[in-house]
């Protein structure tokens, strides 16, 4: 694993590059929209990486948490007149609560069984949102929500017609989320996650509470993912359960694989690379998923630790090659 200083530098470098992208693409709404989606998926994938890659919890509920957050924010702002800027935090809080509820039974489980429980949440969510319960709480049932208020901040209303302000709003949110994740990794939480991942029994003997830390990681990643879902809802302005299709799930997995599982900030790099490749392959039509799948297989074989793993190798290689004392 890279040292914390190098992770921080890499993160700073990534965000410095991303910050100037509107200078080149600001005039093209379509590309700005893709960049905004990259920022959203970078946070969601980073949260997934934190829980799966660092904490070693095979949670497959990340898309579900994202959808819960998006619907919560949209419903809270529409039903109770709460401004979207606050509604997204309420959505994050509610999703964290759901995350804890999902996390509790998972604490008694290991590996694939956690994956099953969390994926069950994903599977259950669609019929709940479409059915009577969903309609009663205002999900719009099978129609979805087709009119969601845009984000307003200090009297300024963000609209998709001018994506640059929206880009920087999402940029700030993504930077804040990545800093939180970085701080967690650097703190004793991060050490505890790694200890629990390597050997839960040994870590417990050292006084690391698996219960406490696993629940905390569920709460934190659910909060950030749910909040990002809220931002997504107010950005796109409409929601449907089609987000629970296999496409997004697979995209996020590919992001993790390309970035490197447990290789923060790999998920951020992975998000930008995956979305860019996906869009570049669009002209291939039905051959896009085949090509994308083949690329992923090749990447997994060539770069099992993702892009960040490659950087690690390059850095360690250059360090070995450099003369002593340098």
């Amino acid at each position, binding site marked *: 694993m890279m040292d914390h200083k190098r992770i921080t530098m890499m993160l700073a470098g990534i965000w410095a590059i991303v910050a100037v992208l509107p200078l080149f693409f600001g005039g093209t709404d*379509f590309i700005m*929209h893709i960049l905004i989606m990259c920022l959203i998926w970078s946070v969601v994938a980073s949260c997934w990486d934190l829980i799966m890659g660092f904490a070693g919890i095979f949670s497959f509920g990340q898309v579900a948490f994202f959808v819960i957050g998006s619907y919560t924010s949209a419903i809270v702002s529409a039903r109770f007149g709460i401004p979207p800027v606050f509604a997204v935090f309420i959505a994050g809080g509610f999703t964290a609560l759901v995350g804890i509820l999902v996390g509790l039974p998972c604490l008694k489980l290991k590996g694939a069984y956690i994956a099953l429980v969390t994926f069950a949440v994903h599977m259950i969510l669609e019929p709940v949102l479409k059915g009577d319960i969903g309609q009663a709480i205002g999900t719009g049932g099978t129609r979805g929500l*087709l009119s969601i208020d845009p984000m307003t901040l200090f009297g300024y209303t963000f609209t998709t017609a001018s994506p640059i302000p929206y880009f920087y709003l999402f940029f700030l949110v993504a930077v804040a989320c990545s800093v939180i994740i970085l701080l967690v990794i650097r703190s004793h939480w991060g050490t505890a996650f790694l200890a629990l991942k390597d050997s839960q029994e040994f870590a417990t003997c050292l006084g690391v509470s698996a219960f406490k830390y696993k629940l905390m990681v569920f709460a934190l990643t659910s909060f950030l993912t749910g909040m990002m879902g809220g931002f997504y809802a107010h950005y*796109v302005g409409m929601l449907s359960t089609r987000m629970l299709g296999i*496409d997004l799930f697979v995209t996020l997995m590919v992001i993790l694989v390309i970035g490197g599982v447990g290789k923060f900030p790999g998920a951020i790099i992975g998000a930008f690379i995956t979305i860019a490749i996906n869009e570049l392959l669009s002209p291939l*039509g039905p051959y896009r998923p085949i090509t994308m799948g083949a690329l992923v297989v090749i990447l997994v074989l060539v770069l099992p630790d993702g892009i960040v793993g490659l950087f690690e190798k390059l850095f360690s290689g250059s360090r070995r090659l450099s003369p002593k004392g340098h």
Partner: protein
Amino acid sequence: MKQRLSIILMLMLSLVAAPALMAAETIKVGVPLAMTGPYTDTGDNYWKGIKMAIDEINDAGGLLGKPLEPVRFDTQEFAPERVMQGADYLCGQIKVDSVHAGWAGWGQDVRAYGKYTAPFFADDGSQAAVDVFNEDREQYKNIFQLTDTGINQAQSMFNVLMALPYEYPNNKAVIITADDAWGTEVGETLKKNFKEKGWEVAMHELVPYGTNQWGPLLTQIRRIKPAIIHVEIVSAQEVITFFRQFMQRPTNSILSYGYSLVPREVVETMGTEADGLLGEVPTAMPTPEAPTPEAQAWLDKFESIWGHLPQAGSWAAYSGVKAWAAAVEAVGDEKKHDAVSDHIATHGYKGETGWWKWDEDHVMRAGGDVPIAHFQVQNGEMVAIFTDPPTRPYKNYQFQVPRWIKQ
């Protein structure tokens, strides 16, 4: 390493630059359809009609002397951001002069493409899409629906079920629909109609796509012995498995598949095994015999190009392109989007079967020269037996009592 990197960069650049290099004096036409994922088959149906129309126009010298160039966009599973991305790409980035879709987002598309001015044709068949349109008619005046809503299509299905020359053994119905917007819209409308007519809806089930094991539901159905079973899941696998499991011990029930009959695989996979099934297609070209000589010529041409009879949506999408092209010719400038939209809305379009007229909601309502066609599978092919509204038998084609019904 450097060599490999430069090859990858060249490949990527060629993918990006290819559309720009082809951009000579052409009129760009956006085609957002599902090219991957579970809706690929319906996307393909629409594409066949759109491609045929574009090729015809180009073969005749283009539109206003300029060839049409389709620009495709894969809508995948219609996630909200994907629908929006399609609009931003086609209208914002490529700046197409019209957009021809099929299933396009059931309301999400109205919002996404309504931000722009290029005329947009969809086949949502959804009341939700109409409701969004009515929120701001001026803003969404470029939106045109090629088919009537699910509510009206379900009403038409009911009308024909009641008009069949067949005496039902009882007044019990079973409704099974997909748990999506289309399925619920159709299911609820049918249920209301059955009840108003004094029928008992003994079972109304919503099932997710991917349901292939029908044992528990069929056990209940065999206990109920309904006179009508209506299944509304627009996916071949589900309706084929339902039929085959039903046929292991069939009840004396008319099997009505509504719009679920139209995925081409249903008839192609089952052939004569599917004989007896009923279904409907809105804004349809009745087959195997078209209503007018012009329509018959179109039907023959379609079959010669694609090797099979048209599926649902092919003719509707074809007609959308032709309606737009006729409006552009009348206005004289494809860039005058508002004028083109106004022309379509006020003048309509004369197609192979007669006039296409959009109503004040910009919906191509069923009826007149373009009614809903109701089919029965006979000898392994879809045969139009009724049109509606008004409900009347189609030519000399007749309903046949399905072979599993013991009278």
